[in-house]
């Protein structure tokens, strides 16, 4: 070490560097579906269902036979070495000879355009790791699976093939509880190709299933290495733990027959010579033990059901995540969309109302003048005009929209739960249903474009197109992405899936909170407007427009008189209450439920101003603008806001 350097070395960096290079073999990206479609025209490659350090597995359908298959593609950089390809083809040929119920059948293999591939039987089920992760594999069930593993291994050994990588991930269980052993000999293939890569992963990776002679790299490795791995597998299936160091006998930790301790011990002997010499021996021993003890409860739940469940869980999780994300995007999109729509529709309505109000005010004023009683009387009681704007509350639309969407997605999930996901027609239906959820946005997009084409460039039309277009595109892309990734997403290890679940719940919660907040923020109920004006000659000198925003919902009745305006409500406890806006102040009359709790605002001031204007009629006064707000709070969280927009203009002299 550096003698001149008294500082300690950077231990963690050193360790990380030393391990970093080994723990993760260089990352690689699995070939895309398009690439594969070009390379394998006879296959319909549907989905990437798994990816490891060495190979990627896809689900596919052989077009001609309409047979479901799994396509295993080795990482492309391996296939660059001719020596590797030759070895791969040799191994694969030997593997293709194996025809056994418990060995994954190889349909085809080869090398095409730089891709080494194996076309193998597709197993609709789960691997042992997934079954264990669900915590639903009892020792009795394990004891029924292990003999099948033994049988498969025995058959391969008889044909001179050593598996070299027996581990739970490589033992597949289909819906009928039948075991298939996968990935024969691939470990050896990797071992010789790139020593720096695989040797280190053998040391640092998960060496638990490896026989000592394998990771020592010394001595010859033969079929007895598989026996050792089998022992580890058996121990883990029985106890849920790995036999590391001085391990506890399974009879003590899992309560299985003591005879199994012997099986485990002997399989895990350090010296190959002291282990069982064939998988058949292990099979016999295990079967002897399982008929002794496990027979009674074994009849309970068939492994097939477990495997089936695991298959569902795998797909279900992915779709759950998918659904939640869709919900989130739809919530955000709806909020945006509705906000744009509201501005577009209601801005015009309000403008129209304002014109109408002014005209009607003037007309009424003129009429009053004609009658000659307008300004001579004091105090001047302004003529009252009422307008009722019954606008649909936008928050309501957002909530309904989101709800409808959520229902659609849930219906789709129910379809999945019925176990029909993945088959042609249901898959089509589910896509259709999910697509329907986006119809409103597409409609908005179309409408906006139509508007643009019809009436020239308008700001609201552009906003409409942008909002709807953005939402529809984003959602469509997300949907397509999830659709493709769903299987991969679901294949992660248990903690990853738990993480996914937790984060999905959080996202769902955030989405709900977001929609609720939006609903709260948006004005609800009905907006009503009261206009009062003052006229001299034929000019409008002063006008007051009082807008009442309330959270009570639509009033049961609105009546207007010459002096004021009255709203009648049904309160939450079914009593009736009337609210009267008279001249310059709001009075709560005949109310049993609306108990005023507080009032803030400057409403009364408005009346005073109007009176002042009237009093000084004839004197020079400037034009005034103002917005005065009264806010009334009532018991039960009811709030009524009265906004007075005042414009007062007085001309000099007559």
């Amino acid at each position, binding site marked *: *070490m550096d003698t001149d350097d008294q500082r*300690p070395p950077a231990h*963690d960096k050193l*360790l990380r*560097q030393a391990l970093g290079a080994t723990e993760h073999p260089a990352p690689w990206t699995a070939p895309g579906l398009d690439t594969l479609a070009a390379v394998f025209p006879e296959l319909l490659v549907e989905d990437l269902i798994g990816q490891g350090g060495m190979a990627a597995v896809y689900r596919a359908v052989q077009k001609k036979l309409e047979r479901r298959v799994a396509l295993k593609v080795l990482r492309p950089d391996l296939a660059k070495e001719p020596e590797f390809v030759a070895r791969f083809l040799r191994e694969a040929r030997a593997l293709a000879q194996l025809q056994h119920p418990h060995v994954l059948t190889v349909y085809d293999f080869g090398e095409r355009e730089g891709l080494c591939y194996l076309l193998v039987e597709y197993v609709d089920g789960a691997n042992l790791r997934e079954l264990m992760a669900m915590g639903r594999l009892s020792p009795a069930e394990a004891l029924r699976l292990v003999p099948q593993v033994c049988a498969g291994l025995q058959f391969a050994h008889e044909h001179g093939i050593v598996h070299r990588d027996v581990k739970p991930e490589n033992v597949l269980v289909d819906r009928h509880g039948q075991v298939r052993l996968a990935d024969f000999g691939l470990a050896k293939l990797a071992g010789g190709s790139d020593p*720096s890569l695989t040797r280190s992963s053998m040391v640092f990776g998960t060496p638990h299933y490896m026989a000592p002679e394998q990771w020592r790299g*010394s001595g010859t490795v033969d079929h007895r290495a598989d026996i050792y791995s089998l022992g580890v597998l058996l121990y883990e299936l029985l106890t849920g733990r790995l036999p590391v160091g001085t391990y506890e006998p399974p009879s003590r930790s899992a309560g299985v027959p003591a005879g199994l301790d012997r099986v485990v011990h002997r399989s895990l002997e350090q010296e190959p010579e002291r282990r069982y010499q064939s998988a058949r021996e292990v099979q016999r021993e295990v079967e002897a033990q399982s008929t002794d003890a496990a027979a009674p409860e074994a009849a309970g739940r068939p492994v097939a059901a477990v495997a089936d469940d695991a298959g569902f869980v795998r797909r279900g999780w992915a779709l759950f995540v998918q659904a939640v994300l869709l919900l989130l995007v739809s919530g955000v999109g709806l909020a945006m969309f509705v906000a744009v729509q509201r501005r577009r529709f209601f801005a015009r309505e309000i403008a129209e109302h304002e014109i109408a109000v002014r005209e009607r005010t003037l007309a009424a004023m003129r009429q009053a003048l004609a009658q000659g009683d307008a300004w001579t009387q004091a105090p001047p009681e302004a003529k009252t005009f009422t307008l009722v704007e019954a606008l649909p509350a936008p928050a309501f639309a957002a909530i309904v929209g989101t709800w409808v969407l959520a229902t659609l997605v849930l219906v789709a999930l129910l379809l999945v739960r019925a176990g029909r996901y993945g088959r042609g027609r249901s898959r089509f239906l589910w896509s259709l249903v999910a697509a329907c959820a986006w119809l409103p946005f597409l409609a908005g997009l179309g409408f906006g474009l139509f508007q643009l084409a019809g009436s020239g460039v308008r700001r609201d039309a552009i906003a409409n197109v942008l909002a709807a277009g953005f939402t529809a595109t984003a959602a469509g892309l997300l949907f397509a992405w999830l659709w493709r990734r769903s299987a991969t997403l679901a294949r992660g290890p248990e903690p990853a899936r738990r993480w996914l679940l937790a984060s999905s719940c959080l996202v769902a919660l955030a989405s709900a909170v977001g929609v609720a907040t939006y609903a709260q923020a948006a004005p609800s109920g009905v907006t009503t407007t009261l206009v009062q004006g003052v006229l001299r000659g034929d000019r409008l000198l002063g006008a007051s427009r009082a807008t009442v925003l309330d959270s009570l919902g639509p009033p049961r009745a609105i009546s207007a008189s010459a002096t004021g305006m009255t709203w009648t409500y049904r309160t939450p406890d079914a009593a009736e209450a009337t609210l009267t806006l008279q001249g310059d102040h709001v009075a709560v009359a005949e109310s049993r439920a609306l108990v005023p709790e507080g009032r803030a605002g400057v409403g009364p001031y408005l009346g005073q101003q109007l009176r002042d204007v009237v009093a000084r009629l004839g004197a020079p006064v400037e034009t005034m603008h103002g917005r005065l707000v009264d806010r009334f709070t009532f018991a039960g969280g009811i709030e009524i806001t009265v906004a007075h927009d005042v414009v007062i203009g007085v001309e000099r002299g007559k």
Partner: protein
Amino acid sequence: MAFHTTRWSLVARAGTDDLAGRQALAELCQAYWQPVYWLYRRLRVDPERARDLTQGLFAHLLERGDLRRADPQRGRFRAWLRACARHWLADEHERERAHKRGGGAVVLSLDVAAEESRYGLQAVDHLDAEALFERRWAQTVIERALVRLEREETTARRGALFPHLRVVLEGEGPRRPWADLARELDTSEGALKVAAHRLRARFRDCLVAEVRDTLPDDVAPGDEVNELRRSLDAGAETPRQSR
């Protein structure tokens, strides 16, 4: 450096009565005295006291070969040594009363001063004694791997390159551009990079070899390496609760 019988399994198999076993144990103890020192240092604070305790423990282990309490047949050297150190401390008062052991028995050379100067500042306060032990252990393994690597490089007559290439083991580039360095060392840039790559791979192997030396024959080093990393990470983290 071949993967044959590990040092620790030699101890376990031969026992300390056997000369070879004793020799192996002495080597291991000399290699890993620092963690023990810091364990005591954390519990007894005084460097003198910690040194005496450490020395006493090793004298006890090596001279009397008293391995009753912790059976080397079971588990790893690290766990065994930690257990022994704990027991030794627990018996401290009893021993003082008996006052039989000559306090000055020196069986190992412990350069406490150097240790204090290099790690005194690093003795992370928030770690408890055991965590400190683990952390220093991990550091020792890595240091030993470095020493081993340097020795190998020197033997292979590549020693001149080593001081320049050492930084690549920490994942950094050399302090000067590759080209300059290559010119100075009278070699090509490509060759230098290859050498750096090879050095990294060799370091990994040395690390594994060091780790394996403290394990029984049949235990793969993966778990132990992971634990080393955890204990290093623990030292780098925020304070954690003492057990």
